[in-house]
């Protein structure tokens, strides 16, 4: 595997829309082509608008016939985002290894339970011996821009690959916007030395449940039944009752956005969140606390 012109390998770059996954795939392909290798690339993209998954499969070798990687044939996973990298674990070959950023980008679909804020973020495989996880955005920040996190990971990958540093730098120069080139070259260098520079910062093994408590207070006698709150509430928790006074149908769904309070012309609704209330130590009554 040490001759760059005879290597045959498969790499997947996985991440979330906007992280530069496709660009990273292009850079790897560019480096391979410098050595005269046959490169095939298959991408899943277009879901970037809503925080969707983006992946780039890069296959290279003396002769490559298809763009898709078979199960057990994947040599390297470059995960720009932890959970996205996890999706590719079933394809990883027994000798394969994973470079992954510990950055978590929680997809909107995982946030269905917006009241409690509970998110089940999969961290099961973080202790897998083939997984090399580190805080790439922190290193990128050190290089000058957090956006260069992807290049940090490419730097880490480049240690495993037999390609020379000059070729990598040439490829970066070709693909990265000129104004950001210096930062990216620095980020690449930091990525190559990630082991010494970045202590592995593992996320908490058990995600901390965010218990957000929202109290709704309704001054019924002030409500004039205009119905503004009924229609502005994103969770549709308010309704007008037979007395033409507003009533909370499902207060447990309240996320505390405060839209109804701000748009209530009659000061009838109070949305109390932890930042705006203080519970009296003795009586437990709810008091208002400025700021």
């Amino acid at each position, binding site marked *: 595997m040490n001759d760059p012109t005879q290597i045959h390998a498969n790499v997947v770059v996985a991440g979330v829309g906007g992280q530069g996954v496709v660009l990273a795939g292009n850079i790897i392909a560019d480096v391979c082509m410098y050595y005269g290798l046959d490169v095939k690339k298959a991408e899943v993209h277009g879901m970037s608008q809503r925080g969707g998954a983006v992946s780039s499969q890069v296959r290279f070798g003396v002769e490559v016939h298809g763009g898709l990687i078979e199960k057990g044939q994947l040599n390297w996973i470059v995960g720009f985002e932890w959970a996205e990298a996890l999706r590719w674990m079933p394809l990883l070959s027994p000798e394969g290894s994973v470079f992954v950023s510990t950055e978590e980008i929680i997809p909107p679909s995982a946030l269905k339970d917006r009241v409690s804020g509970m998110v089940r973020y999969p961290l099961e495989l973080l202790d897998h011996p083939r997984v090399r996880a580190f805080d790439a955005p922190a290193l990128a920040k050190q290089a000058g821009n957090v956006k260069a996190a992807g290049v940090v990971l490419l730097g880490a990958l480049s240690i495993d690959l037999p390609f020379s540093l000059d070729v990598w730098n040439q490829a970066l120069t070709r693909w990265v916007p000129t104004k950001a080139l210096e930062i990216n070259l620095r980020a690449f260098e930091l990525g190559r030395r990630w082991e010494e520079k970045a202590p592995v910062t593992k996320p908490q093994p058990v995600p901390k449940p965010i218990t957000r408590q929202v109290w709704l207070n309704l001054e019924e006698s002030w409500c004039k039944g205009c119905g503004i709150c009924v229609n502005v509430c994103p969770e549709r928790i308010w309704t007008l009752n037979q007395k033409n006074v507003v009533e909370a149908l499902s207060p447990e769904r309240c996320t505390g956005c405060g839209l109804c309070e701000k748009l209530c012309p*009659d000061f009838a609704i109070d949305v109390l969140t932890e930042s705006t209330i203080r519970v009296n130590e003795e009586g437990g009554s709810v008091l208002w606390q400025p700021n």
Partner: protein
Amino acid sequence: MNPGKALLRQDMMPHILCPGCGHGIVMSALVRVLAKRYASLDQVALVAGIGCSSRVVGYIDANTLHTTHGRALSFATGLKLARPELTVIVVTGDGDGLGIGGNHLIHAARRNVDLTCILFNNETYGMTGGQLAPTTVTQAFTTTTPYGNHESAFDATALVTAAGATFVARAQAYRPDLLEGLIEQALDHRGFSFLDVLTDCTEYFSRKNQLGAGSDLLFSQTRSDTEISLDLTEWPRLQEPDGFPVRNLMPMGVLHESNRPTLEEVMELPGYRPKEG
């Protein structure tokens, strides 16, 4: 919770404004800002004239002055010169401030008194029965224009800018956060600061023009597709979708900001020494 709720005169509540009236939303934003900025309202004076908008000051437990129709700015100017340490906020409506009090408005702007003037612009005289106001858009129906308004509307912000106001902005009841931010900026500004706030009259203007009530009326402000812009050349561009003119493409945000000596500084009142250099 709206921290400003503690600043209301609780025995006066609920207020007399109609269900869904935008004035209540503006009042809510105003007291929120007041509560955020001032630990006590002893040094804050609210001056109002006559009209629905001017009723608002009656519900706020500050130093409040309910004056004659259109003359709120004159009273406020006198108050400010006599007690320059006070923060004086004038709450006025479009009929009050631009109709009968239009002359006082331009002269307050010309003098550049260190006041904050919040003009509740609902395009009509709500309290007296929905008559034509100087801000009513062309073709709109009011009780005094049953065949549609033939006149053009005033652009209050352009007027006070020309008259010499040093801070001019426009906000909307529909966007309470923008409104709060602009009220804060207006209060920060030293000199005559003017804030044109688009609100809605649910009883008269909306009924005559079939704009709906409550949330429908509030959402109709989004129909105006307003832009947050600093470019004055954008204005005015009234359009007529569905045959009815709306307050289309009115620029929102800070429209004009300049710096010149305030009347207090020229008169060298306590706390208003002219800036050096």
